[in-house]
């Protein structure tokens, strides 16, 4: 079982040599990272993984009270709780992926400085970890939706539901892509680290998470839809609740932007990965 493959390490490496094969070879590691995170997040808690379900219920309740009851934002006749929950869980998934990606280098600097494994396995495991949480929350959301549907609420799930996997994957990748770019820059400029949490919460307010896009004045609507997250959230909500409409052109643009950001993120990450330990 002598392995005779020759590996060459050189000073320069091509910009686009992303080693997908290696990442696949380390798939067990990626899954173990997921397991570690799951275990670590709910260690020594009484309710354990139940928190995955409780969290969105609590925050959605807060949204309902503040934006629905107090501010009185219209939800186009959709039950308020359901409306806020749909946006909330997808947004949480997106922002979690972004944060996980953004922290890749800084929070793992110690381990990265001592042992080599494909660095990309860390953000990828982040996506999987948050995807698991999302799916649990999504199941909860579907159950709630069905309950509302059978009690005769004006909820209109439609065939666009078939696009759900694409929308979810896209929001995860978009989050990670932005995260990777941020992570690569923070190895040199820590400023961005502070900006991230601020930027993410700001981004939520210019994304139709707590309001339907129909509530935005006509003249601003195009500006909303430039934001690549907006068509995802709006499209997702349309598929399940039937409120608003599906904006095809903004969504295609958003898909293109996502691809671009992920590509750019991977290239930058790949470049920084080699020597970041010298500057971090």
């Amino acid at each position, binding site marked *: *079982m*002598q*392995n*005779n*493959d*020759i*590996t*060459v*390490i*050189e*000073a320069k*490496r091509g910009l686009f040599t992303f080693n997908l094969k290696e990442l696949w*070879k*380390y798939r*067990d*590691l990626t899954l*173990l*990272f997921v*397991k*570690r995170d799951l*275990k*670590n997040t709910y*260690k020594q808690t009484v309710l354990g993984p139940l928190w995955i379900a409780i969290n969105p219920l609590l925050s959605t309740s807060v949204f309902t009270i503040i934006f629905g009851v107090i501010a009185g934002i219209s939800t186009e006749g959709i039950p308020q709780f359901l409306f806020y929950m749909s946006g909330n869980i997808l947004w949480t998934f997106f922002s979690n992926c972004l944060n996980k990606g953004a922290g890749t280098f800084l929070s793992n600097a110690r*381990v*990265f*400085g*001592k*042992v*080599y*494994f494909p660095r990309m396995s860390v953000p990828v495991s982040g996506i999987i970890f948050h995807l698991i949480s999302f799916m649990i929350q999504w199941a909860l959301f579907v159950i709630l939706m069905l309950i509302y549907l059978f009690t005769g609420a004006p909820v209109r799930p439609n065939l666009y539901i078939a696009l759900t996997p694409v929308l979810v994957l896209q929001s995860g990748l978009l989050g990670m892509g932005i995260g990777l770019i941020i992570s690569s820059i923070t190895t*040199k*400029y*820590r*400023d*961005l680290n502070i900006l991230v949490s601020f930027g993410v919460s700001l981004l939520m307010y210019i994304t139709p998470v707590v309001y339907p896009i129909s509530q935005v004045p006509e003249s601003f609507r195009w500006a909303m839809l430039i934001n690549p997250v907006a068509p995802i959230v709006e499209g997702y909500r349309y598929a399940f609740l039937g409120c608003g409409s599906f904006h095809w052109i903004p969504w295609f643009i958003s898909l293109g932007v996502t691809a671009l950001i992920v590509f750019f993120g991977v290239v930058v990450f790949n470049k920084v990965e*080699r*020597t970041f*330990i*010298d*500057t971090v």
Partner: protein
Amino acid sequence: MIEENVVIKTEHLSKEYKLGVINTGTLRRDIQSHLARLRGKEDPNSKIGSNSYEKGEVFLALDDFNVEIKRGERVGIIGANGAGKSTFLKLLSHITAPSKGKIQYRGRIASMLEVGTGFHGELTGRENVYLNGAILGMSKSEVDAKIDQIIEFSECEQFIDTPVKRYSSGMFVKLAFSVAAHLDAEIMIMDEVLAVGDMKFQKKCLKKMRDLAVEEDRTILYVSHNMDTIQELCSRCLVLDHGKKVFDGAVEEAIKQYLGGEKDDFISHDYTADKDDRFKENVRHHAVNLTRCAFNGITSNLFTDDEKVPIALSWENLEDVENLGVRIEIDDYRRYPVTSFVVRNMYSGKKGESVSQRFLLDVSKLSNGVYYTRYIFFRKAKGSRVDEDVEIAKGLVIRRYNHAVEHEAWLKTWGSYMSDGVELID
């Protein structure tokens, strides 16, 4: 490409680090500095009064380093701090990229630059074995196949399903090392990982490593400041100094080169001629000044069989001294103490006097090899019960050779003292 039996080859390998602060750390200041440079003005962020490093000045942690390592070799790497040892291992294990040159290697590399990297306190010992194994490049099925061996080697069976945050530090290290020792990599890299754990476990680890190399043809690279473990494990040794390879060859020679750095065939030494005082060590109160040491009346430092060692020391009193004593210490080639000759209340005298004293040392019990001597002058400190050292100096080198043990070579591991006091009792 590289030859069949060569597993690691480096060509003109260099790693440079920029001196000074890499950047100011914030984007605003970086832009500020950059703009100032563009306009030919002084950098507003350079420290006032500091003779700042020239732009582009770099520190070469590794400088044109070439080496070829063959399959099954156990290579020790020694050198002072900052010589480039760890940098080399880091380049080899992909942690950072070289600035120039290239490395080629065959097969897989398992690097243990630290024991227990990625261990997570909340996970149990067993789970950590899987996680750590995966981090080091093992697949789940590979760990499955070896988990029993790993647990047995670690001596932690009893606690294997307890979170490692409750482990003692010794258990933690044992478990972590066990994982690393069971990797299937063709090349194993270790950076002082054996410096932890108890002696018994250290021995066990060294034995395991050597067995891997000898029986399974693994190649081992080992960095340590502990010459003992280097000697025990390695078959070849590199000495690095300021990023360059200064020696490559037999372990004993390498250790001598690294520790010694001085001639070992001289028979006298004049301390006054030695401007930079390399032979003297600092003492709190310098009461006498050793000026010369010599083997009097002989022309070689080779002492055979029962031959005694005649040493003459000359010194001058820097102040009035009373009841001065001298201790002649003998260290082995690793600079580990072997024995001492102590003379108390040897001399009292006035300030300014120059004195000479001759000693005759019986070294017949020393085994074959090279020994270093040190001279420590001491006296009773006033109002204190402990001796106060007033002069410490390194000195002559003794080479020992016993004809009696010629046919049965005295092994290094048998120690430096030849004992003959054994009787067989019925």
